[in-house]
């Protein structure tokens, strides 16, 4: 049954992706919504909410405003808040109600831009798509507005990290481990988008010699920077020991040759009858973990690319189930399942399960057990299952 789920969770929405990607950049993200989008995002999707101030708000939409087309209220409220709080930019996105009625956020954005003289970018969301789409479009829009043209490529080896948000990498130190690994490999990290870098660093992204897309939501930005600055990109997360080394080598090669590489897709797909492990996580991360298992344990694994998790960087052979029932069938055939603990409910008891918490799926429920796998030895799951 395509849209029904008996016991699983649901991935974060596009609006959460927008807010998460832009969180640290000093702007104001306004979700045109009545109420729930804000509390859901700040409770389940945003681990930085308590400690790090960021201007993410809802418009507090009401049915009357919707029926009467009271867009003026949104314009007025956004302008008033912008005047009071002086954000660096304003991002607007829509929840299901305005998406359904066709609220023209582009026109509203234009009006706000004229009144506030601030950069305003509406991002096309509907509250029904996946966070990856929202995060991807938000990053792209931000780069289009703020990436400086007048920068020189660095002389030393340098890199931008693209597509890092807590939705895929939590706040457990993974992004910092990736950054540290790259520095140890001789890269200067120009920026990390968008976790741990200042707007000024991101504005200088064109200076990097190569880009590393660590999630599917960094790919559109990678292609954009390639077109605009000729910066080649590599897709992958440096997980484990062997694959991290391989990825570092591929990054250096890309910097030299100028050729793009979907590194994490350079993996073997096991024979269908092999009872191989299956991995379910965000696409670049899941494929990178496959590569890591191949390099460090000589084990081939499959990636599952669920339809509800799109855009998803995947190989053609990766199954893309549409619903809980089909997922359960794939899990039943697996040798081991690596997935978020919420998936365990549909994994047969005799199939070993390895917990791979994914904040975009289970929020903060399993944050405490979310381990750093970047640039370090991956625990041998065969000994713990």
């Amino acid at each position: 049954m395509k849209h029904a789920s008996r016991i699983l969770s649901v991935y974060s929405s596009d609006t959460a992706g927008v807010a998460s990607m832009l969180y640290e950049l000093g702007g104001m993200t306004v979700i045109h919504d009545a109420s729930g989008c804000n509390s859901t995002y700040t409770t389940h999707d945003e681990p930085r909410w308590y400690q790090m101030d960021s201007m993410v708000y809802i418009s507090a939409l009401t049915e009357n405003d919707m029926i009467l087309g009271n867009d003026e209220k949104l314009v007025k409220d956004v302008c008033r808040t912008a005047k009071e709080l002086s954000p660096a930019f304003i991002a607007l996105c829509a929840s299901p109600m305005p998406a359904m009625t066709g609220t023209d956020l582009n026109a509203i954005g234009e009006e706000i831009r004229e009144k506030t003289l601030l950069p305003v970018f509406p991002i096309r969301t509907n509250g029904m798509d996946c966070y990856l789409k929202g995060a991807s479009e938000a990053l792209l829009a931000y780069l289009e507005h703020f990436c400086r043209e007048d920068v020189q490529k660095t002389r030393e080896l340098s890199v931008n990290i693209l597509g890092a948000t807590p939705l895929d990498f939590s706040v457990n130190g993974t992004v910092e481990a990736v950054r540290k690994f790259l520095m140890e490999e001789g890269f200067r990290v120009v920026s990390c988008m968008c976790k741990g870098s200042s707007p000024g660093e991101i504005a200088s992204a064109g200076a990097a010699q190569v880009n590393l897309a660590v999630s599917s939501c960094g790919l559109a930005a990678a292609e954009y920077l390639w077109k605009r600055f000729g910066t080649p990109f590599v897709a992958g997360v440096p997980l484990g020991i062997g694959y991290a080394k391989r990825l570092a080598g591929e990054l250096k090669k890309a910097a030299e040759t100028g050729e793009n590489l979907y590194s994490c897709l350079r993996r073997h797909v096991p024979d269908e009858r092999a009872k191989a492990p299956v991995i379910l996580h965000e696409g670049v991360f899941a494929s990178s973990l496959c590569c890591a298992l191949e390099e460090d344990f000589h084990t081939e694994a499959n990636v599952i690319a669920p339809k509800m998790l799109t855009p998803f960087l995947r190989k053609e052979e990766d199954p893309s189930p549409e619903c809980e029932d089909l997922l359960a069938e794939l899990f039943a055939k697996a040798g081991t399942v690596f997935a978020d603990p919420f998936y365990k409910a549909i994994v047969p008891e005799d199939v070993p399960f390895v917990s791979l918490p994914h904040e975009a799926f289970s929020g903060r429920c399993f944050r405490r057990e979310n381990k750093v796998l970047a640039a370090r030895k991956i625990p041998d799951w065969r000994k713990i299952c």
Partner: protein
Amino acid sequence: MLERIGGKTLPETAEISIGQASFPAPFETGLEYNMPARGHWNIVHSAMLVPGLHQIYACARGCLRGVILTAGEMTAMDRMSFVTLEEEDFFSGRMEDSVIQGATHILEQLEKKGMLPPAVMVVLSCVQLFAGVDFPYILESLRQRFPKTDFIDGYMHPTMRKSGLTPDQVMRRQIYAPLKACPRNGKCVTLIGSDHAFPPTADHVAFLKKNGFAVRELASCGSYAEYLRLAESFLFVTNIPPARHAGESLAKRLGRRELYLPVSYSFSEIRHSLLLLAEALEVPPPSPEEFAEKEERAEKALQQAKERIGDAAITIDHTATFRPLSMARLLLEHNFRVTKIHADAFAGEEKEDFLFLKEHHPSLLLSSPTHPAMRFAGKGGSENRGRTLAIGQGAAYFAGTPFFVNRIADSSLFGFDGIFRLAEEMKKAWETPSLTEQTIQIKGLGCRSCLI
């Protein structure tokens, strides 16, 4: 009033003295901020009180996530399912069929496992209701397919929160929807609407028991059969404003009496409520000696709390109580130094207290917890210079204090006993610092949580 907080200026639109404020909504509406205090219950928590009830939400992904993860954090995913609404559903004309087929599939799976629930709440959201979905048809179809299950219509429609009953009010009504007409029990009273069971010491519970009445509450029900027996009572009593509609509509539907005894921190209002209860029960009211004894107990507790807390600033937020003005008035009249109330609006029944405070304590600050500038006022800001006692999680967050009464929605407080217990909790909170950040971020205070 301008105040430098966290490097940002808190604008005049975010805080106002009560002397200058208007009732019931002192602040202009606008963009809204969401503070990281999560103890208040949402519609999922409330519906989970019905034993065995399974919730099926049919909504867009963005709306689903909050409710699904509420259940997830409660470790109750086995009682929660969903049907996702996709953009194509808007245009296909199959909105009803999509919900019916999805819910049927989920329930068939549960049936196969021998886990068909006694009751199912199907919850629709703003967009479907806005599009005029035929909800009765959905429910009727499901009833025909699963005749042994009670189906309840649930609503997650925050766009309607200012133009009718709020989702919270509707949910508090709907969780009693399966109750059916049955013979009346003249010695039994049901308390409607509270998320937490009242202790036997609560004034109304103690009075009922003393006079030989059995007391029933949803929060105490251990089984669906026990839940259905809530309908037997001859009298339904409600205490909190958002449950009043639930009590009234249930009483009307089942042909029972309903009595609203509002939670209050006013001695005279409490006295009046107990007299009303006695009248409804047709029993003698508490004697003057009984009243005096209860009042003295509460007074003494307040006095002891004051001795310990002294002149420290006290702040109150709207998630702690439905009557923040009544609570502030009580404390100010007992010489506590209440400095601020965090609330965007007040219930109609707070008007008298509002006018009293406006006249006698005009400098008392009202602060809008949802104002965008409050983003920069959390974790203490400039207020953290002295020790503050906060009542409520939001007040604790904004004051950045570890000294706070961890309480939501007046839960289980009623009458003089409620005042006594509040004073005891204030005293304890002042003496025992809490881990504010860890504590207030747990959803649904009192519910099971995987985060603890």
